[in-house]
């Protein structure tokens, strides 16, 4: 594939284009079979369903860029969602602003905890976030004493926040769109994003250039945590229920979206546009399953197939640079 317009394109841009074509092809195939799929109503629903995945995956991207991984995002989301719900139950008249602030700050703190351990103690990210994953889940149980917070215990503003429609899309969808647009712009044009790429691509070189790779890791975990916290409130508001096990295992979908979106697990490579496409790819599969008549129980299996295929393909691209004797 040596097409002329490809010259001068970066590897990331080329991969994003391939993924865009693949996502488009998937969309066209499903629409050809089921025209209702392309209806504005259905597409708005698809975006609404994928919104939280998009936000979390963009946060996760930052962490993977700096050679980390955040397995605790779903637990963080669930804990902050429970905090938001409990706060709303205790102070139903307080409005939405304090709930937003609470979930954002709580999420940032939980993320900062991961970040401090990875930055200051140089602990392996997978062990740290596996540990905090189970700690955060356990804390939800202690906070809620194992009970659910149901819709009738939430104020109307709280539940209505994500569902309010504006120009045909829900608030939740607008959150994701604005967020994705900001991420695509910032990852290309801001200094902090450059520093993140540099710290992940080659930490030693970045350190010589005056960038502290550990500090960049901390910032990535902080951001990922804050996003997860905010999504906690959005999740609980949208589904109008909070309990210990909400979003159980969702971190794997988030990581899957990043891997499909072309974020390199070795760090330093990936784009916000690619991650957005990865999320939409998963979202299209998920929302077309009921149309095709496949049980929702197949979702996880299909995710697994897609992840394995995506990582195999991205591993293939690096193959030629390896020496014959080199072990990995």
């Amino acid at each position, binding site marked *: 594939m040596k097409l002329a317009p490809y010259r001068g394109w970066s590897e990331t841009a080329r991969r994003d284009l391939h993924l865009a074509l693949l996502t488009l092809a998937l969309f066209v195939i499903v629409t050809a079979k089921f025209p209702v799929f392309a209806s504005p109503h259905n597409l708005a629903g698809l975006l609404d369903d994928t919104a939280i995945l998009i936000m979390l995956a963009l946060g996760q991207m930052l962490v993977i860029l700096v050679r980390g991984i955040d397995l605790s995002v779903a637990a963080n989301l669930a804990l902050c969602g429970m905090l938001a719900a409990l706060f709303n139950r205790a102070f139903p008249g307080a409005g939405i602003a304090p709930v937003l602030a609470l979930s954002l700050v709580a999420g940032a703190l939980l993320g900062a905890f991961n970040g401090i351990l990875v930055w200051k103690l140089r602990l*392996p990210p997978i062990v740290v976030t596996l540990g905090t994953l*189970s*700690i955060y889940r*356990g804390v939800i149980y202690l906070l809620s004493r*194992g009970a659910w917070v149901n819709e009738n215990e939430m104020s109307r503003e709280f539940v209505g926040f994500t569902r309010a429609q504006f120009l045909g899309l829900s608030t939740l969808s607008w959150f994701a769109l604005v967020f994705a647009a900001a991420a695509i712009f910032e990852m290309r044009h801001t200094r902090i994003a450059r520093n993140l790429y540099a710290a992940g691509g080659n930490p030693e070189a970045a350190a010589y250039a005056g960038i502290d790779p550990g500090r960049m890791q901390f910032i990535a975990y902080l951001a990922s945590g804050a996003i997860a916290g905010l999504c906690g409130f959005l999740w609980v508001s949208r589904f109008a229920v909070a309990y*210990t096990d909400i979003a159980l295992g969702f971190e794997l979908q988030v990581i899957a979206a990043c891997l499909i979106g072309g974020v390199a697990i070795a760090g330093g490579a990936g784009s916000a546009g690619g991650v957005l496409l990865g999320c939409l790819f998963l979202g299209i599969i998920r929302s077309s399953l009921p149309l095709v008549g496949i049980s929702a129980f197949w979702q996880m299996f299909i995710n697994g197939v897609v*992840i394995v295929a995506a*990582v195999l393909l991205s*591993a293939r691209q690096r193959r030629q640079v390896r020496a014959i004797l080199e072990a990995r």
Partner: protein
Amino acid sequence: MTLAPFKRWESMLALVLVGEFVLFSAISPYFLDVDTLSDATFNFTERALVALPLALLIIAGEIDISVAGIIALASVAMGLAAGQGAGAATLAIIGLGTGLAAGCVNGLLVTVGRVPSIVATIGTMTLFRGAAYAVLGDRVLKNYPESFATFGQGYLAGPVSIELALFVVSAVAYALFLHGTRWGRAVFAIGANPVATRFSGIPVNRYRFALFALTGLASGLAAVLLTSRLGSTRPSIAQGWELEIISIVILGGVSVWGGKGSILGVVLAALVFGLITFGLGLMNIPGIVMSIFTGTLLILVVAVPALVRRP
């Protein structure tokens, strides 16, 4: 390699173990009883049987997060075969075979596919458990023949269960392999420096593949024992076990950076872990609160050496 710090780590684990014994026998008068202790072993034997090969894998610088997914897949395969009227021995072979096959898939992804093991096994974890959900949905399989219960519920002699006997034999075998053979030395070498090891003529990828296959096989064995003990299969079987099994390995002093660790440490960690689970059960503390403890322990185990190392 200096052995002294590891000896210290293991003696610390032994001390914790003694502390647990003292604490729990003070709390409950029924604790120091042969039958009670025999029951308590079921809290760790199945997990420990997977933790042993996983320790080798982590020493070799790789990781397998899909172990619990393999257990679920193997259990579903056995459940389906039992529905067709398969006997106990056939079921055990199917469980072991499924585990081995799943482990080979992991091994191929990492060696031939050249995918980093953490990513590959996050993928296959989703794939294997996803397959279990896809096949079973919300059904439960429990048409197991009566003789199948022997594996997980039977006793070899007196209070020594078949599971416990299997664990002891495996632990000795793994210890001899890792610490007594040149293959074991190669596992350490691969974890410490895979490139140098490859340049010394050791077929690194063949070792990696074999270790993934072995971990798969052990997960299959755990699936046979667990399914036999529970007598039923749900797609959520062994959910979250990967965390507990990895915790046991790391608590046992195996370095997450590869190249360091011992079987004795893993065995002691499994005992410590199993006793804590059992003790918290004695005190009526729910499992989810236990996860706070496991998570904290996991972080502390890697944080304490890091804190000590700092100037």
